[in-house]
């Protein structure tokens, strides 16, 4: 069904038809798969990079000016590339890693390259907000640097790390849709192929519902988790 020849209401009704959902169901799974794996990669590497950035900060636990400047510089370069440019740029890298430049897995390279630096910056800014007094108290009780990271920095920033991660997952999701244009599959691919190229607006609408629902669920879970922790500590 197209908006060109069918009234809006009919298209909306048509977007709930079983055959439309049969078409997009595999794409939804592809999107979920890409989002889950890419978010996990973002979480692990972004967290590690963010912690390294704060620890090697000139005022940090283990000042390493060279490393700090170098990684800060690298992050800024990666952050300055628009998502689409990053996807195109990562095509040869994906070819080296996976042997092909299209498909779900290769596109995750580009998604990770875009979202890891972003989450690293979020982690960094969260950790930098911790009062120095707490870190000094931990030091004067005999904590090693690793213990300070695991026992003080992470638990203290957990609520904001979770909120930041929610933002990161949604960024990953939106990027999977963009990657759909470059052969990654998923809901974005559906939107382009059916909604844009074939004017099948009912399919496009269905894809939009899925994206809206996914973002709502992700945001709800993130808010719920961070609020629970904050409430337990009575910070609000």
């Amino acid at each position: 069904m197209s908006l060109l020849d069918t009234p809006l209401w009919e298209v909306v009704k048509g977007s709930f038809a079983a055959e439309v959902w049969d078409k997009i169901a595999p794409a939804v799974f592809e999107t979920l798969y890409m989002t889950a794996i890419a978010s996990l990669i973002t979480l692990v590497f972004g967290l590690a990079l963010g912690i390294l950035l704060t620890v090697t900060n000139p005022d940090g636990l283990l000042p390493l000016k060279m490393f700090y400047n170098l990684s800060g510089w690298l992050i800024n370069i990666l952050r300055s590339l628009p998502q689409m440019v990053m996807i195109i740029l990562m095509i040869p890298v994906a070819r080296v890693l996976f042997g092909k430049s299209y498909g779900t897995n290769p596109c995750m390279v580009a998604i990770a390259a875009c979202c890891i630096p972003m989450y690293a910056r979020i982690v960094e800014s969260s950790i930098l907000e911790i009062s120095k007094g707490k870190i000094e108290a931990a030091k004067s009780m005999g904590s090693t640097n690793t213990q300070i990271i695991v026992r003080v920095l992470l638990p203290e920033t957990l609520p904001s790390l979770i909120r930041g991660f929610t933002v990161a997952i949604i960024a990953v999701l939106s990027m999977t849709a963009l990657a759909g244009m470059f052969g990654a599959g998923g809901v974005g691919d559906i939107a382009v192929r059916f909604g844009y190229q074939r004017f099948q607006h009912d399919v496009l609408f269905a894809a939009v519902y899925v994206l809206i629902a996914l973002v709502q669920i992700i945001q709800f879970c993130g808010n719920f988790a961070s609020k629970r922790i904050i409430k337990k500590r009575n910070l609000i």
Partner: protein
Amino acid sequence: MSDVVLEVSGVSRTYYDDKKNAVEALRDIGLTVSRGEFVTFIGSSGCGKTTLLRLIAGLDEPQSGKLLLYGMEISGANPNRGYVVQQGGLFPWLSVWDNIAYGLKVRGQYRKHKADVAKYVRLIGLEGFEKSFPHQISGGMAQRVAIARALINEPELLLLDEPMGALDSFTRADIQDKLLELHRESGATMLLVTHDVDEAIFLSDRIFIMTPRPGKIKHILRVSIPHPRHRGGVDFFSLRRDILEQLELASAMPQPEYKI
């Protein structure tokens, strides 16, 4: 009382602000503290008393001079120098029990010394609050937890940076009593930074009066009033007057207006 725990000689520390102006926080500080002593540093803000305490804690380094703990040079923070800050030092995600046990846990001695945690909970009078979180207890209780958390590591020195600065005067008196009890009980050498003259007299064996710009020790006063000290006693007040004069806070007596 004769063996020296801490020896500070010729210590200077200058900070530079954003405009590269030098702020001389400490100039040529020298002092010794004996085992089991309770020593107080008093002075107006900016006299370097907190800087001195941070140097002793190993959280900062002097530009010149030496700080020796039992003859060994102090470098870096160490649990043998417990450090308590004015407020907000507790970990909000840990219960009272876990806050106190933190030092034992990070040094892998929790299993062996679990009874110590219970002992300190009892000493600070917080039985029944072990499972409470820092936000669920009062500011005074939180400071008692902070002190217990430092004492459980059995430090040679307990460094107290205005631990009662943010409390009301009733709670403050209560913690002062507790602190004396803990001092007696643990035998730890305690160094307190404060700007409260009464607190200094009530607690200390010796009072170091400091003056700002540059931070220097102006005068050392021995308090020989026997414990328990009466906060309203005559000897208390005469000492108070001496300190206020040293701090140049006692207002001058009005001069008679007539001449011969």
